[in-house]
């Protein structure tokens, strides 16, 4: 068992090495809880806004995928404001996530545990744990995961408290948004071009990326450069 205070102390000790606090938290969580990886994302009411931390390549890949597809345990946890556990992905007859589920299984993940990061009624994001072995987390594992989620909220508040009120996001939180800036620009662009709302425009971009098996960012760049026109599909009412 590890407490929130112990976690914060451990990652603070390593801060300054060039790694971001969210990244350090994910690495610490993954090592201490014997996971394949863990990742942290910013999520608000309009959806996934960027990956802010990952323990390693596997977590980074699965976190990115949740952004790409706009689906996954982190989004579900944030939307419902309650933990989402799937103890055995490979045994599921029907995976809860059409795109994310098979990809997670292919990456060797058998169990996922996503925890919402929220203060009062304000959603901030989610912390997601990926494990190679199936099974539920026991009481101690659940308590430790919750301590990591509490620490993750502390890290977010700690970072944002360092910026002036009314001003921008803290650089460590802004970086993933900058990285995906073109996706948001293309969303605005497509909403004009296809005469749809922003939410639908983003859905169209995601659907196109999924169908053509290309990164969302590439699709966004093509849309912005006028190389790609995406139209809403006919007869979508079904």
């Amino acid at each position, binding site marked *: 068992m590890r407490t929130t205070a112990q976690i914060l102390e451990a990652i603070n000790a390593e801060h300054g090495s060039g790694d971001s606090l969210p990244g350090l938290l994910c690495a610490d969580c993954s090592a201490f809880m014997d996971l394949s990886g863990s990742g942290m994302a*910013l999520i*608000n009411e*309009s959806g996934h*806004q960027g990956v802010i931390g990952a323990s390693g390549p596997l977590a980074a890949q699965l976190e990115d995928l949740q952004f790409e597809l706009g689906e996954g345990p982190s989004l579900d946890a944030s939307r419902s404001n309650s933990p989402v556990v799937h103890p055995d992905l490979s045994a599921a007859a029907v995976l809860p996530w059409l795109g994310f589920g098979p990809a997670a299984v292919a990456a060797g993940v058998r169990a996922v545990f996503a925890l919402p990061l929220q*203060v*009062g009624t*304000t*959603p*901030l994001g989610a912390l997601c744990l990926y494990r190679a072995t199936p099974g539920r987390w026991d009481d101690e594992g659940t308590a430790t995961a919750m301590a990591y989620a509490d620490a993750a*909220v502390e890290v*977010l*508040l700690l970072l*944002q*408290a360092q*910026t002036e*009120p*009314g*001003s*921008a*996001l803290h650089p460590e*939180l*802004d970086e993933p*948004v900058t990285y995906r*800036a073109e996706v*948001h*620009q*293309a*969303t*605005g*662009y*497509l*909403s*004009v*071009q296809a005469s749809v709302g*922003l939410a639908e425009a983003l859905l169209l971009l995601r659907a196109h990326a999924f169908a053509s098996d290309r990164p969302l960012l590439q699709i966004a760049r093509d849309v*912005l450069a006028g190389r790609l026109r995406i139209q809403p599909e006919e007869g979508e009412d079904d």
Partner: protein
Amino acid sequence: MTTEQRLTQVFVELADTLVDEFDALDFLSTLTERSVELLHADAAGVILNDMRGSLHVVASTSDRAKVLELFELQNDEGPCLDCFNSGRAVVNVGLSEARSRWPRFSVAAADVGYQSAHAIPLRLRDSVIGAMNLFSSAVVELTPDDVALGQALADIATIGLLQERAVRQSGLIAEQLQTALNSRVLIEQAKGVLLASSGVDVDRAFQLMRDYSRSHNEPVKEVARRVIERELAADDLRHP
């Protein structure tokens, strides 16, 4: 019930209020009621020192105007003010000494029918954030055990208030984070809208929105929202 049993009961009750759906005012009113009961008082109040150095009553067992005035009066003189300044409990000050030390306060207290007044500090490390004020209609001498108990109750009040403050501050920062994130995304989306509708490249689009925001004294986020809603086109931004 013995005093020890009753004490245990009170501390369990206060601890429960701290854990449940926490309401600072409910918590402080319970605390003042129990303080009256355990410390032989007739009225009790919690007074806080705000950032500008003036005192405010945040909880009182009595809402009689004259009692409330007694608390307020101590902005000028009285046991609470002395307690703030010294950081120590001000207890068992005899009537005659009280009359010379706090002439106006003593008259006002006697007027309401109180003969004793005590003040116990709400301490946070080296600073005093407030005081618990006790009034009795009889002349009451607090024993060292009473003072220790009063301090324990005051310490619990401090913990409760700090918790409330921390929760409020976290909420504020969380909202700031959310607002900053929302506006960041909104601005990027608005750049895309301007590019698609007027062919303005994204860097120029941001300049236009920022200049409009400055000249109209309107937050960039709001300008971006109006661009997305098509209330503002590139031409409106160019020729405001």
